[in-house]
């Protein structure tokens, strides 16, 4: 039997999405194509939800680390929706038929899907209203030195320097690696970090950048670039404790 959920359960799922800001807000199918947007999110290892509402109803497509997890759709007037795990993109395609539908993409923790034979996960909270009112997730800084690193400025600047020295294609690959590390609480889009970077995830992201750059440009160069960056942001010592670049064999 297919798994279904009620409107209140759907709202609870949306309410559980963390992150203060939407990655993309108020998009319209009239000028945004579905496939390229989904491809971009998948390539970035995105975790979160793409929510759309319009004349065809209301639906959501969930991502988990770049994978399409599931989707649900409430046709107009329906009180329950079927959760699609097989080919979930088709659900959003239905909503894309309405050129004026409102689409929001928000990073966050995807819902837990019930195992085969398992009952539905208990719903203990109902979101007050729309996805735009979702509160930001709380941060839990562990090490004060790491928490003091301005990750939201440091990571985009690191990528900008990679782009200046080694070009856009490599920077794009490293951006994808960073986003895989930051997901689901934050995402790096161009020169801006959206959402909140947890220090632990920032460390993983910086190490991913150092390793990727070191493979191409050499460990010595990657070390210099990142340590200089740490110096420029007043956190050289903290950065030096995290980045241990393994030179290419």
């Amino acid at each position: 039997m297919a798994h279904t959920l009620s409107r209140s359960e759907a709202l609870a799922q949306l309410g559980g999405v963390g992150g203060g800001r939407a990655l993309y807000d108020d998009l319209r199918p009239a000028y945004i194509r579905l496939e390229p947007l989904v491809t971009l999110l998948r390539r970035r290892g995105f975790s979160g939800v793409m929510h759309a509402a319009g004349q065809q109803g209301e639906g959501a497509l969930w991502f988990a680390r770049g994978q399409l997890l599931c989707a649900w759709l409430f046709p107009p007037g329906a009180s329950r929706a079927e959760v699609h795990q097989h080919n979930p993109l088709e659900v959003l395609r239905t909503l894309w038929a309405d050129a004026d539908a409102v689409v929001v993409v928000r990073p966050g923790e995807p819902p837990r899907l019930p195992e085969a034979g398992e009952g539905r996960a208990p719903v203990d909270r109902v979101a007050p209203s729309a996805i735009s009112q979702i509160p930001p997730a709380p941060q839990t800084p562990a090490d004060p030195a790491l928490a003091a690193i301005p990750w939201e400025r440091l990571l985009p600047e690191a990528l900008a320097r990679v782009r200046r020295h080694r070009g856009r294609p490599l920077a794009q690959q490293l951006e994808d690696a960073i986003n895989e590390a930051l997901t689901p609480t934050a995402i790096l889009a161009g020169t801006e970090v959206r959402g909140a970077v947890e220090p632990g995830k920032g460390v993983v992201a910086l190490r991913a950048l150092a390793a990727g750059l070191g493979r191409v440009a050499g460990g010595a160069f990657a070390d210099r670039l990142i340590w200089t960056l740490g110096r420029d942001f007043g956190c050289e010592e903290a950065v030096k404790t995290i980045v241990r670049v393994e030179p290419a064999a």
Partner: protein
Amino acid sequence: MTSSILPLLLPAVVVAMGLAVFLPVPMDLTGRFLQHLLSPAVQILAASSAAILLRQAAAGYGPRDHERRVWRLGALAAWLWVIGLRVYAITEWSGQARAYPSAADGFLVGAFLVLLLALAEEFRLVNSILTRGQRQLLAGGALALWVVVIARFVWPIATSALDPVEKSLDLFYASTVALLFPLALGPAMAFRGSVSGYVWLGVAGGVLCLALSGLGFAYLTSFEVYSDVHPINLLRVAGLAILGASGAWHRRMLEAA
């Protein structure tokens, strides 16, 4: 010295010397003698400076960095050019009837092969950054270039009565342009729009000049019109100077990180 502007000026001075040696057409005996004396000297100077600057670029890396090996191989290729050009000059000045093919070609072929290895190593590094379309474009360009070179330059030589060793060398020197240039363009495409992209564009330009000088050398010798003061040698001087300048620029980029 590496952080100063001097390493970038050295290749410019070498090119200026090359222009001063190869472009004038001296009418008197002393002028001709001087030109024959200076021609190999300028070429050896160009190769030596390129070797030093490429070695300095390699020194900017850690001992296990992949690109260190690339630049060191580039420096080794330039040293092989130094040896090959010296052997060629000695062969010429010793009055041997035929300076081509000679022992010098062993070193010059070796120089091209080591340079080919260096570029292949760098291409392997950037292969994952290039798109499939870019790889196809480079492979297609290399094939088209090789076909044009063979049809236009090598075919007339291959069908002539030259000895097999000379024909093989001609085929090798002529083919270097199709082998080396696309390989050098790969990193320039992968790093496009960045400082490294311009450095590798310089390397590609230097490699193109060197390969064209090899092609010109093979073509001119087959028609017995090559001499050590022929202006085609300017391409070799320019190619080595551009390679050296690229190495110097790359070293500055590494230091400025």
